């Protein structure tokens, strides 16, 4: 344990990548601590990826396993695509945090404990039979027993604050220790605290003092054997900022709106983990954003459809349970051939399921979750930052093809964050809406563009284009109600063909690797980071393995079948029971697809993927 290691001299160990995990009570400020560490590291020049892991309960009882909130970040001097499988350093603010997070600590790694929280009551509350620090449960780790609470209290004596406010500074003490351990400057967080507590200088002072005290404590104690050095990564030149998936989603829509010179109308009902999109959009009303917190999920999507009908960008987002409720209305937009964007921030299901945990099990819902023949364009973002790009693309496709688009993200992308080389608006592609123009003849609402099959759009306020549409079957061209049998079949087919033809307007599927060989790893959406990391590591080790990651789910890119046919084996990896694999089997019945799945509310770990791939390569 610590004593034996403390004898050695302090050294500096250089690492390619390091994983850190902060864990404490929901009220301990672990999310803030983690994001501050991430931000400082990004400014320092590391590449990184983060993963917040918090409970569905807002504040479960203090000291219980149910109330533990965690934040994991991987920093690197090499490209980082995931928050990492196991933590090299785990900070646990109480026994419950240790109990629920020990499984994420690497054997041989460092665990920093707030020893003041390890009293008999807390140990029992956490469900330990004995004191884990004393009974050998932690023998495989380098444990640092730090009296974080009491040292914070002592350090802040004399500052005019109540005891509760003082104790809430202990997360800054822990962060200070991490800044020493990873050789990071304190100045970025100091600046942040000054601005956050501008109106409460005593709180700013207390937090900064706790941060410094933690830093000096770590420097002084002999329990920490070495400092880690993670030098800056070689990162593409450009301007960067930090962004989470939900914020990137909101901004992508705002960017599309600005490009189209239309307003966003965002109809939404609060739901985890999609609500942050609503919060973000609500801040930007003067940038052409209308938000409506609707009375339910159905009103959210219906008001968005109304807004699209009136010529603005109708947008709604939810998670699985909410998307299930929106199904009938999405069918209306398909029938009325109106642009609509529906974001599904997927979470564990079915029913209420695991609200704060990630899953990819709504692909069937997106593809088939409506009555009758009702195809949708389906896209999936694959990193927190590219939620921006795909929100933008979703809007572009919805309007250029006059049909609803479902955009799939997930809890892991929504809350995860990464540095983002953000674009200039001038670089974003144009969006051209097929508006009807006066041509001397009566307007036919279902007359189509011959290439895309999108109908020409007229909105209220356009004189001479008054027309009626609705959910009843349409006669071709005129859009009048029609129960004619042949017409119905033709219209069902034309709506399907319109979606299929979107394949002519999306990029071809890329592959990382040779484009042929023994094993192709196929993934989609939020698993990009772990699949990419696993495949690149095996590739570097000389294995014959490639990776193709899909963002366009329906329609699939045109070269998909040809790409697949270059491999002996294809394995489709996803966080569900094999829904994308089944989608591919349906599309390409001649090809064989293996399915590798995980349904634990957690992302794939790189180690488990590599094991599976090595096995498949045998």
């Amino acid at each position: 344990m610590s004593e034996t290691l403390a004898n050695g001299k302090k050294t500096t160990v250089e690492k390619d990548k390091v994983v850190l995990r902060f864990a404490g009570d929901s009220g301990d400020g672990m999310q803030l601590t983690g994001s501050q560490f991430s931000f400082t590291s990004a400014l320092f020049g590391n590449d990184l990826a983060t993963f917040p892991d918090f409970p569905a309960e807002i504040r479960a009882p203090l000291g219980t396993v149910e109330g533990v909130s965690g934040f994991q970040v991987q920093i690197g001097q090499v490209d980082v695509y995931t928050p990492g499988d196991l933590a090299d350093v785990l900070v646990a603010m109480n026994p419950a945090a240790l109990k629920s997070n020990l499984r994420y600590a690497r054997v041989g790694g460092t665990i920093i404990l707030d020893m003041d929280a390890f009293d008999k009551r807390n140990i029992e509350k956490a469900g330990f039979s004995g004191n884990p620090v004393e009974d050998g449960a932690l023998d495989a780790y380098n444990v640092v027993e730090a009296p974080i609470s009491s040292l914070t209290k002592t350090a802040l004596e004399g500052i005019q604050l109540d005891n509760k406010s003082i104790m809430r500074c202990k997360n800054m003490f822990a962060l200070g220790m991490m800044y020493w351990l990873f050789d990071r400057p304190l100045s970025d967080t100091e600046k942040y605290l000054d601005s956050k507590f501008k109106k409460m200088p005593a709180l700013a002072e207390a937090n900064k003092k706790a941060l410094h005290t933690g830093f000096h404590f770590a420097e002084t104690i002999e329990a920490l054997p070495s400092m880690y050095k993670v030098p800056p990564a070689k990162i593409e030149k450009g301007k960067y900022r930090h962004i989470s998936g939900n914020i990137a989603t909101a901004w992508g829509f705002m960017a599309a709106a600005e490009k189209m010179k239309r307003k966003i109308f965002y109809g939404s009902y609060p739901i985890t983990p999609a609500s942050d999109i609503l919060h973000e959009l609500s801040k930007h009303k003067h940038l052409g954003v209308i938000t409506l917190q609707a009375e339910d999920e159905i009103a959210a999507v219906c008001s968005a459809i109304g807004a699209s009908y009136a010529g603005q960008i109708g947008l709604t987002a939810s998670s699985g349970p909410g998307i299930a409720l929106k199904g009938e209305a999405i069918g209306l937009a398909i029938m009325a051939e109106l642009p609509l964007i529906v974001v599904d921030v997927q979470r564990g299901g079915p029913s209420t399921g695991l609200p704060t945990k990630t899953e990819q099990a709504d692909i069937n819902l997106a593809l088939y979750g409506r009555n009758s023949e009702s195809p949708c364009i389906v896209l999936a973002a694959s990193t927190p930052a590219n939620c921006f790009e795909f929100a933008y693309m979703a809007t572009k496709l919805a309007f250029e093809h006059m049909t609803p688009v479902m955009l799939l993200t997930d809890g892991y992308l929504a809350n995860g964050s990464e540095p983002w080389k953000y674009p200039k608006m001038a670089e974003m592609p144009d969006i051209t809406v097929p508006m009807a123009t006066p041509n001397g003849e009566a307007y036919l609402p279902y007359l189509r563009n011959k290439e895309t099959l999108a109908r020409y759009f007229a909105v209220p306020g356009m004189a001479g284009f008054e027309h009626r549409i609705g959910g009843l079957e349409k006669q071709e061209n005129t859009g009048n109600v029609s129960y004619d049998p042949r017409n119905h079949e033709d219209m069902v087919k034309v709506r399907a063909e319109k979606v299929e033809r979107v394949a002519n307007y999306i990029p071809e599927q890329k592959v990382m690797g040779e484009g042929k060989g023994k094993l192709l790893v196929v993934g989609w959406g939020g698993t990009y980071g772990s699949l990419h990391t696993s495949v690149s590591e095996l590739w570097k080790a000389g294995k014959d393995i490639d990776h193709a990651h899909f963002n366009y789910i329906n329609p699939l890119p045109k070269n998909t079948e040809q790409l697949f046919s270059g491999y002996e084996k294809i394995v489709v990896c996803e966080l569900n029971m094999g829904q994308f694999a089944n989608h591919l089997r349906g599309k390409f019945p001649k090809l064989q697809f293996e399915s590798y799945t995980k349904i634990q509310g957690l992302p794939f770990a790189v180690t488990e993927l590599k094991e599976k791939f090595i096995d498949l390569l045998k």
Partner: protein
Amino acid sequence: MAEVAEKEEKPKLTKKDFASDQLVRWCPGCGDYSILSAMTGALPQLDIPKEDIVFVSGIGCAARFPYYMNTYGFHTIHGRGPAVATGVKLANPKLSVWEIQGDGDALAIGGNHFIHALRRNIDINILLFNNEIYGLTKGQYSPTSPTGLVTKSTPYGALERPFHAGELVLGAQGTYYSRTIDTNPKLMTEIFVKAAQHVGTSMVEILQNCVIFNDDAHGAVTDRANRDDFQLHIEHGQPMLFGKEKQKGLRLNGLKLEVVTLGENGVTEKDILVHDAHEPDSTLHMMLVRLHPPEFPIVLGVIRDVTLPAYSEKMEEEVKRSGEKSKYTCMDDLLNSGETWEVK
């Protein structure tokens, strides 16, 4: 030349301009025909260009209404009309938005959207065609059917108590509620015009007859023999008098309304309540909404019409405040805002 063109005024729209080319397909004798006719008669009086008028509906017999209007129209899904209309109005507040509902559409499957549109005071006009029955699904009881009504789905009589639309409107803090009847085209036309002029959600309940599944449902107040004694037509600022000779009236007795007759027991016109549609306190409006035969007449006309900012007005105000507080005016500003860094 340009000057001449500017001076040229568009010809006044007529009733005919608002009729679409579609064959009207309600049952012969359906009350909806007279509502449609009253609407095409009312719209020319409003001086709103055709292209700025949108009719939105849900599902049901009434919901076919937009197909018969030569304006913009959107026939949506069951019960969701108010939600779609909300989106239309907020996306383009200058539009005149009309939302057509039946009693099942508005008060059963769409009850939630109905009350929330009113609570938000979205500036739309909701017309509720209340025939107390499900017509399009061929004759089941509705949430406004009286208790005991025998229908296909209630062969032993309906067990439930009916909703009264007006009570819901007032409960949801609606700013405008009027009631009219499909047999009175003049009153309908008048009320449609007034509803359009009211800023905020205007709710018009139309007692409508379903000739096939619930014929004569409103007979107690519409039959020629009953009409005068069981219809009280109210107007803002006027005493609440009714009866063939306007000899009967409403008087407040303690916390209850009572019917009195002028000249009997010393009752004079001074004793009769004068209608105040603009009174923000809805207590008396609620009492008027609840009156029904045989004890009382039913109240027709504009029962409540109070002025409060519409949602879209507040929204425009909010955009201003958001702009004043913000440091950026476009996406490039936003992308460059806050903590950014450059890799060189």
